[in-house]
């Protein structure tokens, strides 16, 4: 089974990375650089593909981030739930697709399926071949935003379908959730859909994370920064 390398020694040396079909929740307070951590974890390696469902920044900004991080943009797709509300006539391309708003779960589901199909058909990356079956890293850059627009029960059902599909295609999913804005019931329900959780905290302007739920990986807090799309663990 394919393993998605993380670039984090504490994970890769124990189990080779995230196993195919893993869904990971990143629980983080605001302004803790958790989005950078998520992007670093889904940055595509050679032959891999990444899809970001962006509910809080424009597709162009997401692509720019990965470009700066040294990723090949031909292997990155974005489903943008922001831009269309201000630019209704914006048209989909193979790798950039737009839905009218974060409320539009129908549109999000369709664009996700379309992108996966295009990847499997080999038409995603301008003829540049990737691996087959294609390893896909997927990120929802804020479940918190989706929760602002849709009821928890509805979102739970929707994410249930999405995480199951990702397992089916042996992808890996990263989902960001603000740990301070939601009650315990919400956090616990969303956690039920996940394979493991990465908790992020910030103390004295220093960021830490710990990983819960991966066998063999200790749950100790690790101090980290993200540099050029790479997670760096500092002593």
């Amino acid at each position: 089974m394919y393993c998605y390398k993380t670039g984090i020694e504490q994970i890769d040396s124990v189990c080779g990375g995230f196993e195919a079909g893993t869904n990971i929740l990143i629980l983080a307070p605001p302004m803790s650089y958790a989005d950078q951590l998520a992007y670093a974890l889904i940055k595509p390696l050679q032959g891999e593909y990444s899809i970001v469902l962006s509910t809080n920044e424009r597709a162009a900004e997401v692509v720019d981030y990965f470009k700066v991080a040294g990723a090949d943009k031909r292997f990155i797709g974005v489903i943008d739930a922001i831009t269309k509300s201000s630019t209704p006539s914006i048209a989909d391309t193979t790798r950039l697709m737009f839905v009218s708003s974060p409320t539009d779960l129908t549109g999000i589901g369709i664009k996700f399926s379309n992108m996966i199909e295009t990847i499997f058909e080999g038409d995603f990356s301008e003829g540049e071949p990737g691996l087959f079956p294609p390893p896909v890293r997927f990120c929802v850059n804020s479940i918190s935003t989706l929760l602002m627009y849709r009821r928890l029960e509805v979102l739970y059902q929707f994410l249930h379908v999405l995480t199951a599909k990702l397992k089916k295609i042996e992808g890996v999913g990263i989902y960001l959730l603000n740990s301070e804005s939601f009650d315990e019931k919400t956090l616990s329900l969303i956690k039920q859909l996940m394979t493991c959780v990465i908790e992020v905290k910030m103390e004295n302007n220093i960021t830490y994370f710990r990983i819960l739920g991966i066998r063999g990986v200790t749950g100790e807090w690790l101090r980290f920064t993200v540099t050029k799309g790479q997670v760096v663990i500092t002593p």
Partner: protein
Amino acid sequence: MIPTGIHALDEMLGGGIPGNSRVLYSMEPGVNGQHFMISTLSAALKKGLTCLVILPNTTVDAFRHDAITMQGDQKTFSSDNLVFIDAIDRERIQKGAASRSAEARAWKARIQKVCQDNRIDVIFAYFDLLYEAFGLDTGLSILESARQSRKTTLILEHLNLEGAPLVDRFIHDHAFDLVLTIRSSSHPLPQFSYFTLLHTSWAPIPVRSIPFSVNEGTVVPYIPRIVVTGPERSGKSTFVAHASAAGREGIRAGVPEESANGAMDFGWLRWKNFDITLYGTPGNMGFDPHILPMLRHAMGVVLVIDATDPAMLPRANYLAGLVTKQRIPFVIAANRKDQPDVMEENEIRLALSLPKEIPLYYISATERSDVNRVLESLVDYITRISS
């Protein structure tokens, strides 16, 4: 009658949707089924009907742009017969209402006013957010209130995250006239989407599932096809004949009647609401160029081999490779299980480079129950839903 704009569906419905009906297009997440609603709207507008589109989760401009992109028809969607209640209206209603019940009343008042002012013939409603906010009974009553004074047709699109029980409520508790579900297999390739005509109140139309593709904005239904292939004398014709409800082997085109290896076999069966056509490929290698076109739009393949004949394994391996390249789901039917010297499963798997997830069944093609087991497994595999 209001046509759906999907020719094959209109034929099944006897011309379209009767006026004053209530229609549900129930979509599973991820299925490209938005064309059903858009196509029906387009057909209604072309018929000169006045339509209200309720889109609580998007704006008029974004909707119009998407509809034109899907249908390629700017004129229709710029029609004066088209009015909207959109996300901006929803925001106003929400802000102005002190409670959930006040919000429901505000929705009713708004829809009634638009319907009266514009003499609306058909309401097209994207139902998700109304359902989420008010539940099924109140959500539908909001839309129903506008229909009381006039014979207005109501057509809903709904993202169904709850499965069959919710659809049943539309049929049994709310007496919808037409319920059509739109689903897909969980496999990314081949993309296999299908609609099921689940309920019609005005005609005894049998429940039927039809696969479809979307070509240039048009929903194109096609007949589900299972291809039965295999080396010469492996038992394909017998398999097709015993699988079929009304099967017939030996429909031949341009080949000698006596040459069974140059014959195409056809059969038909009904399984899980699909009317499936079975195509048996000729075994003769000279007919190989015809196999690829037969695989186009195939929903699955049965590769029949003679389990007693190791000499045909290289040919079977070639055919398995051909199917694998097309990424079509397939199963192996190892025929003549009742004969001596049947090969071990490992030997067959090794020779055909078969991964363990490809099912292999030992069968006797003359036993209908064996043949059915293979087809059941294949159809289950193809239509299995991720949720």
